[in-house]
């Protein structure tokens, strides 16, 4: 079993090979492409289960299963740069979740994309997406994780822009890539800093890894600008990447637009891949984030550390949770509501990581993946059944036309809202709220979390009302119909999983929680010794009840086609519908600034630098001109005058030689007289 880690690469390699093979296939090979993609992911699921089983055995010694296998990737500066694969409860749990949910989404896509001309290409991109995400999970090296992280970004770019002929889709794809890349700049700086400071990017390397005691102790001891510990600075830089990828404030703007992609892609992005990556990253580097000079309790999930980095994570998460829930209240697009609910839920996960540690945040991530995939696929089924309609106000009464979709969607809705006891979402959210309640630095995140919970129940009830209960509104798309089996079966499976997952997530038997935290020996202990568990639960139930009751009361009495809040609070509603003007704010500030800077650079190039260079040329020309003038008027003029004089003299002299003998004789005589005179004159002296 120790060698499991050595073969861990097989899990991402399976879908990657499928993606490569599909890339070489022709457009008409639809069935082989889908078969290959689904087959490879199902195999990856089986392999993940094997890996998962390996982590269940209690490990010798520490009580924490952590297997890794490393190899030299290349040599730089005479030293080997090593990469590797890592298997621990964190990655094993995620592997099973991603491959399981992913497989169901793949199956669902067969039905959903059946009429698309680029069906084959679609499965290629899906496989690439899954491969990149799985690679990210098994990486034992932050650079390898970053590479897969970027490939996840590429795959999402390709899939969001899958219908590239639609300008909105192409724009959304670009927006997703660039918004996440803004976060990635911080991430990259964090990576190189961590590498420099610890000398390794391997997470775990038998004591020499960058997340192990030795390295962490050094990072905590060193300080940087403003007296901040290096560990805090690096943590915050790495968190920038998570903010971008996991749609946290203020980089969340790409996530709602990402629904321009086909609905299975939205399900994949919002549930199993992409946004999960950011949360996973924070959980992965948790030992770094939790490092404080007071001594670190690495790997312990039960009692979270209080550090600056984790406080930032908590606050960003709490604000995002409320923000997403607020905006979702006023959206009409069925997918857009779910998109904002994802933003909000990701905020909860961050809050859970910050206040309760990796187990709390990851529990919600895993559970959320199931019911969010369920909701998105359910929404896809609704859209499919309504002939492409996405506006919830123009649906209504679908519970009779689409019974399976309705029943499963209701399960997802109740899990998301946190209906008590039988739904997994309740327990995972309760764990977060409980952690926030006992969080020492502040109670505000807990209050924000409760508000978010009430709002979540509110907008999900509103959505259920409009889609399934409201009186039927006639649409131009004909009668709605239930979707085919390839689409409903995944819905049923996901709904069942959503309910069943509640069992290992309860505080009475917190098996999953303990597993993620790596405390298998505490298998049957009650969690957190019970302090405040009941109180947190009561608050949470109260919030949900208020949200559902208010929403149901408001909407069941509103006339069809209108919105209760729109009538009551039109200005608030407008602001929420416009997503609190965040996009507009960015367009007015950053976009304009970037545009201005690029025009300025271009202008500087054409005129400023160009002028300097050209003026140098002009100066040279000027010097040349002065030289020419000097040459012409001084040197040449003198030369010319000399020439002219010589020529004149010559002319004059030539006139003498005119061929007349008498003149020659006369001159000869004059010459002789002159010579004689001179000689006589000199002789007399």
């Amino acid at each position: 079993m120790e060698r499991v880690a050595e073969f861990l690469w097989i899990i991402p390699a399976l879908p990657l090979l499928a993606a490569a093979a599909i890339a070489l296939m022709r457009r008409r090979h639809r069935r082989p492409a889908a078969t290959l993609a689904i087959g490879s992911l199902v195999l990856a699921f089986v392999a993940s289960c094997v890996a998962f089983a390996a982590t269940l055995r209690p490990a010798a010694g520490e009580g924490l299963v952590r297997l890794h296998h490393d190899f030299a990737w290349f040599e730089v500066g005479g030293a080997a740069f090593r990469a590797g694969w890592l298997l621990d409860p964190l990655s094993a749990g995620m592997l099973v979740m991603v491959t399981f949910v992913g497989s169901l989404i793949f199956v669902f896509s067969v039905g959903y994309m059946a009429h698309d001309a680029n069906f084959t290409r679609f499965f290629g991109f899906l496989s690439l997406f899954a491969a990149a995400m799985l690679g990210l999970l098994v990486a034992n090296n932050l650079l390898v994780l970053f590479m897969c992280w970027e490939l996840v970004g590429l795959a999402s770019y390709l899939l969001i822009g899958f219908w590239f002929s639609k300008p909105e889709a192409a724009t959304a794809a670009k927006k997703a890539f660039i918004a996440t890349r803004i976060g990635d700049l911080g991430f990259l700086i964090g990576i190189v800093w961590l590498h420099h400071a610890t000398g390794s990017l391997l997470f775990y390397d038998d004591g020499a890894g960058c997340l192990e005691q030795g390295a962490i102790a050094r990072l905590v001891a060193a300080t940087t600008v403003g007296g901040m510990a290096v560990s805090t600075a690096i943590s915050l830089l790495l968190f920038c990447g998570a903010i971008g990828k996991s749609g946290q404030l203020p980089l969340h703007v790409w996530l709602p637009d990402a629904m321009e992609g086909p609905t299975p892609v939205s399900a994949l992005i919002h549930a199993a891949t992409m946004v999960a990556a950011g949360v996973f990253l924070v959980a992965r580097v948790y030992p770094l984030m939790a490092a404080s000079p007071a001594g670190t309790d690495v790997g312990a999930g039960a009692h979270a550390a209080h550090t600056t980095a984790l406080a930032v994570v908590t606050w960003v998460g709490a604000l995002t949770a409320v923000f997403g829930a607020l905006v979702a209240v006023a959206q009409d697009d069925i997918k857009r509501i779910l998109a904002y609910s994802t933003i909000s839920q990701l905020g909860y996960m961050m809050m859970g990581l910050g206040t309760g540690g990796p187990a709390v945040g990851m529990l919600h991530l895993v559970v959320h993946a199931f019911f969010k995939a369920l909701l998105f696929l359910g929404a896809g089924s609704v859209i499919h059944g309504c002939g492409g309609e996405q506006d919830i106000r123009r649906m209504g009464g679908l519970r009779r036309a689409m019974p399976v979709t309705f029943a499963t969607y209701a399960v997802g809705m109740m899990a998301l809202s946190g209906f008590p006891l039988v739904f997994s979402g309740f327990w995972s959210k309760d764990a977060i709220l409980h952690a926030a309640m006992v969080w020492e630095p502040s109670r505000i995140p807990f209050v924000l979390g409760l508000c978010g919970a009430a709002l979540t129940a509110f907008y999900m009830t509103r959505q259920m009302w409009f889609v399934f209960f409201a009186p039927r509104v006639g649409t131009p798309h004909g009668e709605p119909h239930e979707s085919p089996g390839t689409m409903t079966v995944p819905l049923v499976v996901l709904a069942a999983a959503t309910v069943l997952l509640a069992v290992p997530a309860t505080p009475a038997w917190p098996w999953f929680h303990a597993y993620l935290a790596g405390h298998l020996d505490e298998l049957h202990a009650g969690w957190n010794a019970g302090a405040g568990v009941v109180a947190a639960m009561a608050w949470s139930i109260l919030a949900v009840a208020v949200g559902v009751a208010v929403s149901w009361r408001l909407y069941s009495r509103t006339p069809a086609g209108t919105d209760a809040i729109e009538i009551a609070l039109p200005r608030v509603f407008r602001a929420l519908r416009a997503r609190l003007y965040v996009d507009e704010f960015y367009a007015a500030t950053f976009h304009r600034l970037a545009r201005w800077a690029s025009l300025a650079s271009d202008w500087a190039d054409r005129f400023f630098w160009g002028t300097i260079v050209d003026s140098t040329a002009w100066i040279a020309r000027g010097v040349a001109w002065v030289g020419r003038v000097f040459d012409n008027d001084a040197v040449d003029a003198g030369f010319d005058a000399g020439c002219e004089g010589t020529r004149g003299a010559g002319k004059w002299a030539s006139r003498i030689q005119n061929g007349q003998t008498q003149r020659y004789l006369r001159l000869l005589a004059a010459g002789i007289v002159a010579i004689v005179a001179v000689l006589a004159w000199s002789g007399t002296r």
Partner: protein
Amino acid sequence: MNGFPAITLLTATPIVGALVLAFGGDRGERRARATALGFALLALIEALVIAWGFDGKTTAIQFPERHAWIPTLGVEYRVGIDALGILPLLLSALLVPFAIAVGTTPPERPHAYHALVLLLQAGLFGAFTALNFFHWFVFWELSLVPAYFLVKLWGGSERRAAATRFFVQTFAGSVAMLLAMQAVFVATGTFDLPRLAELGRSGALARALETRLHWPGVAPASLATLVFAGVLLGLAVKVPLMPFHTWLPDAYSSAPTGVTMLLTGALSKMGVYGFLRILVPLFPAQIRASLGLLLGLVVLTIVASALAACAQKDLKRMLAYSSVNHLGLCLLGIFAAMQPVAAGPTWALERATALDGVLLQMFNHGIVAAALFGFVAAIERRSGGLVGTHDFGGLRTVAPVFAGLMGISVFASLGLPGLNGFIGEFLVFKGSFALAGAATSVATLGLLFTAMFLLTMLQRVFAGPLDERWKTFPDLTRAELAAFVPVVGLMFALGIVPGLLLRLVDPGIVEFVKRLGP
């Protein structure tokens, strides 16, 4: 000392090809192209054989040849390859056949065109192997002359102005460098680069310049700085470093696209190579003295060129600025490595990391930029010369393979992991951040803007509704595929196994770093 003259043979191959073409007369485009391609492929095979025989583990100069040439002037014919030269040499050998195959052969005087292309390659080979300054300079200039005529005779509408600007600016730089190196010769009596490197390292060069040169009106102490500035100017124009880059967008956009592939892919590397071969070994103290200014200029180059690229409406000008941006990263790595540090393995490692990154970045940028311009040439052939970013739209619908391969090249250019551009950039950033943190952090903005303009370009050209004019835009032909597929394959191979290149250069770079001083 003199074994089999492998390098002379390599340099002679394109010269022979150029002579064959020049004296063979005009026998049509096909014939000229085939002949040129034949010689270029022959040179490629020779270069691959040399690379095969190149031992990455030793740090000695390999394949050496040394003959007296003009003994009174200290001029020797001295060639050889070490870690600095092997990758640019391979790159030149690779890009010329690629450019001949992908670039459009002009219908007028095709034999002369290809003869000049081969002559250019000879200049590149010579410059990347020469170990004597005089000899190096001859080839450096030799590559400039064919480039000038290629732009001037076969370029676009602005060719005359562009060619003149290109020639005058680079030539002015060359003259400054030549004068500076003559001063070095007067002071030291040698043009031998390894010997001069030793003098530069020990500081004897600066002392010799101070004591032996007597320039009226110049304080002896500032003589070394003046000479350094002359060499720097020559190299900075070539790379280019802002603000000496203004010739470049015009030249790149006016040159025939096949020639632009070589200008950006190979010729620009001569500048970076010159920094490593001449400036860094000869003038380490002078670089350190002006490091703040140089790093500032590099960051300006990286960020401003990426921003300027965002504002371009013409594919060729956009890619030209993108080239400036990528080469800026090379200079960032070089200057960061010159940052004074305490002795110790940590800092030596960071320096080696940055310089390994520089060499990788040179090679990878060469391939990717040439491929991108190659795709532009293919677009030009189909569009009748149109290359505006707004002239197209939705081309992916009609030319999916074209869009796919060009898309891969674009992502390689913006540093997507798994493709060749990434590891080089990462190593440069990794080494530079440790050595020059602030400058490197600002420089990362270049990565963001690069993504912005490249993705905007992809969107405008390939996505959106199909423009009516291009309904019959043909996808890549078999011949084009035969040229592009191996190069795109190389992007994947080098991205996944960067060790293929690193093992050739890393030991040499470690040795190079040892000699950098504090």
